[in-house]
């Protein structure tokens, strides 16, 4: 399943890297402690977080995440968005909280297998 399909299914708003929405999502990780995300997430994950600091882009590129979804309608900080555009990392925004969004994406990925 690609990001575009998840975005469509869950009404996510796209903030950066529209040309990367065909990135395939193979799993997911939910977390706000970047040290933990760095240690435990995997390539191909969609990363669900409340952190909007620009370091999220660095972590997502380092870990080769498919993209980042910000929860609770949180917007990326200005420099975060700039960096995401530069690095071509998709950042999307959801109105849902982390628990609900994670559950929905988990189910979508499970159904897709």
């Amino acid at each position, binding site marked *: 399943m690609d990001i575009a399909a998840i975005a469509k299914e869950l009404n996510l708003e796209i903030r950066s890297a529209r040309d990367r929405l065909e990135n395939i999502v193979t799993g997911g990780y939910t977390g*706000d*402690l*970047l*040290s*933990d*995300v*760095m240690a435990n997430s995997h390539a191909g994950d969609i990363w669900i977080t409340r*952190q909007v*600091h*620009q*370091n999220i882009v*660095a*972590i997502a590129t380092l870990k080769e995440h498919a993209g980042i979804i910000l929860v609770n309608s949180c917007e990326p*900080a200005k*420099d975060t968005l700039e960096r995401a555009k530069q690095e071509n990392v998709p950042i999307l925004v959801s109105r849902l909280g982390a628990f609900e969004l994670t559950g929905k994406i988990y189910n979508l990925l499970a159904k897709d297998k």
Partner: protein
Amino acid sequence: MLKVFHCDFHIHTCLSPCAELDMHPQAIVEKALGVNLDIIAICDHNSAENAPYAIKAARGKNIKVFGGMEITSSEEVHVLAIFDSPDSLSSMQKYIYDHLTGKNDEERFGVQAVVNEKGEVEAINEKLLIGATDVALGDLLDNVHKLHGLTIASHIDRESFSVISQLGFVEPGMQFDALEVTPRTGLTQARNKYPELSNYSFVVSSDAHYLKDIGTALTRIMLAEPTLDELKMAFTGKNGRHIME
């Protein structure tokens, strides 16, 4: 003439809900003198209301007390902000209170006592000092510097509320004047553990929440006198001022 000063930039008082009530300004100054500290900074969570009393308690004594705060950024990174002017400290206090919401729950988090230099309770602070401000880390560091303060990233080796736990790494552009490690790690081990941070000055502090913690950690710094300007020189290794590792 330069000499070595024993410094601890991270001491809480009974204003921090997580600190013991015996940590009132006068007791802290006496204890710090007793363990031969030369410079201390009072850094409660998001508040500096006890700092002026600690400065008063130290008047005429052989110790320099700086007022400061341990501020929680919106990313939940703890940062020590240290000032030498009372006006700067109160400006920072106002700014932080404007960006901090919530009410403390004494039962759950603890009492937040404002205590004067004689050990008398002046007030109970009702703000949720343990909470996070809505100020982003970069803006926070800029604002401290605009008020001529020093910024030290708190306990970067800890798994909670540190710049590394919250944000993964210290980005090269982050304007910290120094990085703090806990005594468990210490300066020598910190240099081995964080080779990528070799451009930063490191300090060790007690992060004292109990009187018995004061004196358990210190940083030895070569200075001419105990001022913030001298410390700035030491953190950048200028004019012979430096941190002794």
